[in-house]
């Protein structure tokens, strides 16, 4: 790791102060209040509460439906991250070759990120609707091939594809930025040594891209755990029979719609612990393979 540092820690304190101040006021303060509810039975309109220690947690952890939600979320997170990053990485590597017309490709590949969420839900319904959508043509050919309404794994597949789609552009743009900050002199030198483009990709670009890769891995996994509410809400409402009942959707459903603040707070804490441990594992084991300098 780094050996050269600046000495003046007062400046360090000064530059981190704004961020810390903002997250204290707008994140930690309100979050700690929300998390406090996890240990109480909170009345939503603010009429008071009763301290119940870990009862809310005990209730959740003894509920097999909750564990199913944890499982489903994990599958969703891993699948969307793998799909989105895989596709984005391949596209970025090839777009970075800067062949003719690559600028339009670049815009075309980033553009989907700008589409507002409700429209995406509807567009995917057009695609996946088993009786009227694009998928219905498959069902003509093979009856009962595709039924996301009643088949849990089909519904899950649908949600994963839509979730991954949303993240491809996001990952693509950062991969591309990462590739572009690799100095041209490096690849040129390798080309001079007779390394062909594919070899240069494997030997130079990919290793130098690992910091970006690590950033995206952590962000994508975190996001797919904590930011997947909208997709599930518009596409499956957690069904059928809880097959797509992701943790964050359940939190939203119980807390925001059902006004069970305490239950939702307890679930939030469990979700946070889960994501923090996953992140920690990534920092501990994956970051070791990242080439920074």
């Amino acid at each position, binding site marked *: 790791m*780094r050996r050269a540092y*600046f000495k003046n*820690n007062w*400046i*360090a*304190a*000064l530059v*981190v102060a*704004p*961020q*810390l101040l*903002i*997250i204290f*006021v707008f994140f930690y*303060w*309100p*979050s700690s209040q*929300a998390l406090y509810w996890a240990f109480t039975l909170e009345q939503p309109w603010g009429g008071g509460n009763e301290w119940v220690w870990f009862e809310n947690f005990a209730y959740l952890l003894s509920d097999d439906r909750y564990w199913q939600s944890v499982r489903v979320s994990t599958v969703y997170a891993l699948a969307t991250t793998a799909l989105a990053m895989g596709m984005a990485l*391949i*596209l970025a590597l090839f777009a970075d070759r800067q*062949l003719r017309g690559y600028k339009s490709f670049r*815009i*075309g*590949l980033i*553009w989907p990120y*700008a*589409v*507002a*969420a*409700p429209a995406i839900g*509807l*567009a*995917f319904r*057009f*695609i996946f609707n088993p*009786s*009227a*959508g*694009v998928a*219905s*043509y498959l069902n003509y050919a093979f009856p009962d091939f595709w039924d996301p309404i009643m088949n849990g794994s089909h519904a899950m597949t649908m949600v994963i594809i839509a979730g991954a*789609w949303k993240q*491809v552009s996001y990952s693509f743009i950062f991969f591309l*930025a990462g590739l572009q*900050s690799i*100095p041209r002199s490096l690849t*040129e030198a390798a*080309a001079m040594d007779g390394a062909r*483009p594919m070899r240069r990709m494997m030997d130079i670009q990919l290793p130098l891209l690992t910091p970006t890769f690590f*950033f995206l891995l952590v*962000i994508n996994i*975190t996001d797919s755990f904590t*930011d997947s*509410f909208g997709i599930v809400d518009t596409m499956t409402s957690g069904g059928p029979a809880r097959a797509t009942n992701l943790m964050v959707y359940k*939190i*939203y459903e119980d807390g925001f719609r059902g006004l069970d603040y305490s239950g939702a707070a307890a679930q939030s804490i469990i*979700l*946070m612990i889960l*994501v923090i441990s996953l992140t920690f594992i990534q920092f501990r084991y994956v970051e070791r393979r990242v080439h920074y*300098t």
Partner: protein
Amino acid sequence: MIERTPWLNLVTHAILFTGLFILVVPIYLVIVAASQTLPDVMAIPAKLLPGDQLLVNIRAAWEEAAFGTKFTNTMILPTGVVVGKIVIAALTAFGIVFFNHRLRMPIFWMVFITLMLPLEVRIVPTYAVAANALSPFQTILDVTGFSWLINAVSGIEVALEWNLLNSYTGLIMPLVATATGTFLYRQFFLTIPDELVEAAKMDGAGPLRFLWDILIPLSRTNMAALATIMFVVGWNQYLWPLLIITDPSYGVAAVELSRLVPNMNTTGGDIPNWHWAMAGTLIVMLPPVAVVIFMQRWFVRGLINTDK
């Protein structure tokens, strides 16, 4: 650098075309729906070719949702988020990468944890903070007894108040307070070779000079990527503005768009004017797309090599 790689070029184009196709299909369907009549949108099986109602629907959406007055207005929100986030993120990452102090990792994790709890989950207490941004400090003063002390000594009653409802500050601040940017900058700063730092110190450049003259120009493409993403995220913010803005003069386009989306959760059900909602989507999409295109000019290889 001139190489002849005809096969690889063909493969490259094929892959890019396939990727583009997959990514653009849903958008194509949005356009299809936006160009159809109401019965066509609902048709069984779905009609997958565009109709001729695009302009009609766009006009209808424009009139239904009063985007006109909201557009310039809305620019302030994502612009504020982008600027705020980039500045704050770069500073924080700088503070934890280039200084050797014990709080480096704790600070990084403290910032990072903000990613783990989405706004939706903590919206009730966050609203309370937006209604009075100084309430945390007030509470701290009250709990620690300082308020009482000040009151007893000077007879002044401490009542801190800073109401951020219906203000751009209130809209922007909670959205700035997240970790993505800090993490990205940290990743980038870690790739800066030690030699560069040593050289800067040798030249007698202080930390801030080093940040401004060396790091910021080097991080240009990353900054462009971050700005593009954050602009889109800020532009499409919906839940938070919906809550804290009750004065229509601060309204944002994404909220207006959501008013166009048919309400399917009432027991009755609304007229499914999806064709208008889709046309509205196209309208609301324009500024972010413009930003994507504009930001392209920043995606050029740095002229200065980091010379590793």
